[in-house]
């Protein structure tokens, strides 16, 4: 196999660090992933040799940085198989990408009495912007429920679409349950009813091969920092026809073509949606992360993580009193669970003392917790650098938690 876990671990400097005197076990990857050396070095190089504001500068540094920036835009387009680089808008993250669409596209198409459809497993970032929009427009937010395993059933989904549905926004992968939604089918059905679909891909990009042309989604959003890239950068992929029709979101800087006090004309795509100095550093860093993902191979990563998930699931199921939330047939490496009646805060505090980083709480998906009637979960989420040995350590820690609170 081409997947050499020791080599991969050695690519991530932070895995050498100790917490409370023992090697860090990092299972908080759904919150943010760690960065390979290639990404860190790209940033250092940039500031050491290339730093410059881009676009419109004729001097050497500015030309070189602009070229590197625009080349990365093309690289991103290729990586998710967009048909052209003008469809790649750089944002600061998934949350901003979704807000942009809710504000520019949503405000344009939504009228009083219309409906926006989401699912019950959305992250707050793919829920609150739609809720606010519906509130503003006197439209209704409709919610497709999920079943006990954490799956959206196609029949339930179809039942919620009607001739008032104006846009559907749904997660490719749930951050809390790990569920991989059948988004291709869901998009196809929606398009049959002429409804555009936004996919929140924040939790998908580092785990699955994403192909926006194959999915045929109208919008696809993700964050660099959840896919081994730097913080402060995200992507909004959108079909060109939508971007052309949409009004700009933020204004100022390079997104204008000409300005007088009486009128302003906006720049062409993609610049029309990129107001202010772009985060060149983070875009180049994201380019390095994508290169790293491609070199490692998305399929190898998926296989390896599937294996980790199967192992972890089986181990956790064996522990008496452990209750798993999210047991969909198609899942990424996310294990959300509770131990007996122990409060997640208590469990998390003790697990941390074993140098293991898990997240506890509602994971910005409070409605998921409400659905199960629990205050929160303990969540271990895997990345390509995790190992079965680390899962064993988690199992050990869970036994200790049980002992201490038993």
């Amino acid at each position, binding site marked *: 196999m081409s997947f050499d876990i020791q080599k991969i671990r050695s690519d991530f400097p932070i895995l050498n660090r100790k917490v409370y005197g023992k090697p860090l076990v990092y299972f908080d990857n759904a919150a943010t992933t760690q960065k390979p050396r290639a990404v860190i070095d790209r940033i250092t190089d940039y500031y050491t040799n290339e730093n410059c504001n881009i676009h419109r500068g004729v001097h050497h540094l500015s030309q070189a940085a602009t070229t590197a920036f625009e080349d990365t835009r093309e690289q991103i387009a290729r990586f998710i198989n967009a048909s052209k680089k003008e469809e790649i808008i750089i944002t600061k993250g998934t949350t901003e990408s979704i807000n942009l669409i809710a504000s520019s596209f949503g405000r344009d198409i939504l009228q009083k009495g219309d409906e926006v459809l989401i699912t019950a497993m959305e992250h707050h970032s793919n829920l609150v912007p739609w809720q606010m929009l519906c509130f503003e427009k006197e439209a209704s937010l409709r919610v497709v429920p999920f079943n006990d395993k954490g799956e959206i059933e196609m029949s339930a989904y179809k039942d919620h679409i009607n001739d008032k549905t104006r846009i559907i926004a749904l997660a490719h992968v749930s951050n809390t349950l790990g569920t991989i939604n059948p988004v291709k089918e869901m998009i196809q059905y929606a398009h049959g009813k002429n409804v555009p679909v936004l996919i929140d891909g924040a939790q998908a990009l580092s785990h699955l091969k994403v192909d926006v042309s194959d999915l045929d989604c109208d919008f696809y959003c993700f964050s660099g920092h959840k896919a081994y890239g730097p913080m402060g950068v995200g992507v909004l992929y959108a079909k060109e026809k939508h971007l052309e029709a949409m009004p700009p979101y933020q204004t100022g800087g390079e997104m204008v073509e000409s300005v007088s006090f009486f009128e302003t004309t906006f720049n062409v795509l993609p610049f029309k949606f990129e107001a202010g100095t772009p985060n060149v550093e983070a875009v180049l860093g994201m380019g390095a992360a994508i290169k790293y993902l491609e070199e490692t191979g998305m399929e190898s990563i998926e296989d390896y993580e599937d294996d980790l998930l199967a192992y972890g699931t089986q181990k956790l199921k064996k522990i008496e009193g452990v209750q798993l939330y999210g047991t969909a047939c198609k899942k990424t490496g996310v294990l959300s669970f509770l131990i007996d009646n*122990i*409060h*997640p*805060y*208590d469990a998390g*505090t*003790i697990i941390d*003392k074993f140098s293991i980083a898990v997240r*506890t*709480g*509602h994971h910005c998906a409070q409605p998921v917790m409400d659905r199960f009637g629990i*205050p*929160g979960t303990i969540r271990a989420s895997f990345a390509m650098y995790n190992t079965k040995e680390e899962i064993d350590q988690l199992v050990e820690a869970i036994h200790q938690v049980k002992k*201490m*609170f038993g």
Partner: protein
Amino acid sequence: MTIKEIQEQIITEFGNFDDWMDRYNHLIDMGKSCPLIDEKYKTKSFLISGCQSRVWLHASMSDGEIIFTADSDAVITKGIVNLLIRVFSKQPADDIIAADIAFIDEIGLNEHLSPTRSNGLMSMIKQMKLYALAFKTKAANQ
């Protein structure tokens, strides 16, 4: 005992433990002891909301001393709540207002008091001092 003396007592008590596990086991024991607050006060108006664990706090005045009762839904938080009650309850308002809570640091539980921890404990201490101030002002106006 004064606030200072109680804090010293607690520091001595925790001084007996060699490692974090013993310390936490002790804390958990304290957390498991029966609820410290009358159930009727476990309502929204007495809730101090941290986003992960919740704390309920009630205060009353009796003979110039302030009586605090409290509870939490997480055991570790409750253990610390218990310690804070031991320190602050049945003390004069002025002492509560002036007190610092260095003992939490010294017994190695400071992380739980970080304002970024969002377990409600930081707000609880703030709230205790506010109660003390309020009772003091009220007494002065009478």
